[in-house]
């Protein structure tokens, strides 16, 4: 989902940066507030960041014959709310843009928007909906993490289609082309991300039940179950 350095026209690059900036600022504010209120959650926040670090470094093969990587933002979005993931995703993307020439400074805003804004917000919303519908804990997490991952790549496809509409078919035709590259490749990876997120959350729910109950992620009944 990394749009490469220089591959977004200037106007789009600036537009997406302006769109992402408030999320990053608000996210930093919400993280600071939470750490001040509950300093003991600092380590768990580190786990959410570390999970994004690991998953976004793993380039996995897909059935389409190309490689891509999961995002790892669903875990933190469920634990800390979607806003907290914007600055965390921004750090990961900045690391990759500067040291790895993966993504870029000019495309950072657009990449933050897809991976650290749309993905986490979708994941958190799906998780809340699934809980309201009384789906089991594991299934709710799985749906949140995998669909959040997939929607990140759908967003990237839309961003590129907006910047490079098809000369004949316009936005829609272009979107289909980019989505074939990104979203289709992503399907098995999104499923993998869903499973990995459930595994980590199962472990956290088992060994840190009190923290997770305080964060309203699990209920007492689910911990015992």
């Amino acid at each position: 989902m990394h749009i490469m350095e220089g591959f977004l026209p200037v106007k789009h690059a600036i537009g997406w940066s302006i769109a992402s900036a408030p999320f990053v600022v608000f996210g930093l504010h919400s993280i600071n507030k939470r750490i001040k209120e509950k300093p003991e959650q600092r380590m768990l926040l580190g786990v959410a960041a570390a999970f994004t670090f690991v998953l976004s470094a793993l380039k996995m093969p897909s059935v389409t014959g190309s490689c891509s990587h999961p995002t790892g933002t669903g875990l933190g979005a469920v634990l800390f709310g979607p806003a907290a993931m914007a600055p965390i995703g921004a750090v990961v993307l900045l690391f990759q843009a500067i040291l790895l020439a993966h993504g870029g400074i000019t495309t950072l805003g657009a990449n933050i928007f897809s991976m650290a804004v749309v993905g986490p917000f979708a994941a958190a919303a799906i998780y809340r909906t699934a809980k309201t519908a009384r789906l089991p804990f594991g299934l709710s997490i799985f749906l949140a993490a995998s669909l959040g991952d997939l929607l990140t790549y759908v967003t990237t496809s839309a961003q590129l289609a907006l910047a490079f509409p098809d000369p004949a078919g316009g936005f829609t035709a272009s979107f289909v082309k980019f989505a074939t590259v990104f979203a289709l490749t992503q399907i098995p990876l999104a499923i993998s991300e869903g499973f990995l997120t459930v595994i980590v959350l199962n472990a956290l729910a088992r060994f840190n039940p009190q923290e997770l109950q305080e964060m309203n992620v699990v209920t007492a009944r689910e911990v015992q179950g």
Partner: protein
Amino acid sequence: MKRHQNLLMMLAVIVLVAVPLWMVKKPAPGPDGTEVEIFRGADDQAKDVIATLAPGYRPWFKPLMEPPSGEIGSLLFALQAALGAGFIGYYLGVSVTRSRLRREHNKEAQC
């Protein structure tokens, strides 16, 4: 049951990664004898799509720093994954020990 479930999910991830490796076959080299590359990055392929949609487009900014070789690139990616995995492992290790000590403590208190 839960542990069983976790194991199954880990297996599923391995299968999901392994299946494409033997399912996708390398196509024969093109007429000019150039090898067809498989399992390229999707980001790279998007660049090709841009080239067909807007042949005149030239990137207007170059990466500030590029890993001098693929080896160095994979070193940095491995480092990124290792840092993350190390931290998660540390935290889970601490949590497991803490919950065991708490259990033992409760048991002693009951005696």
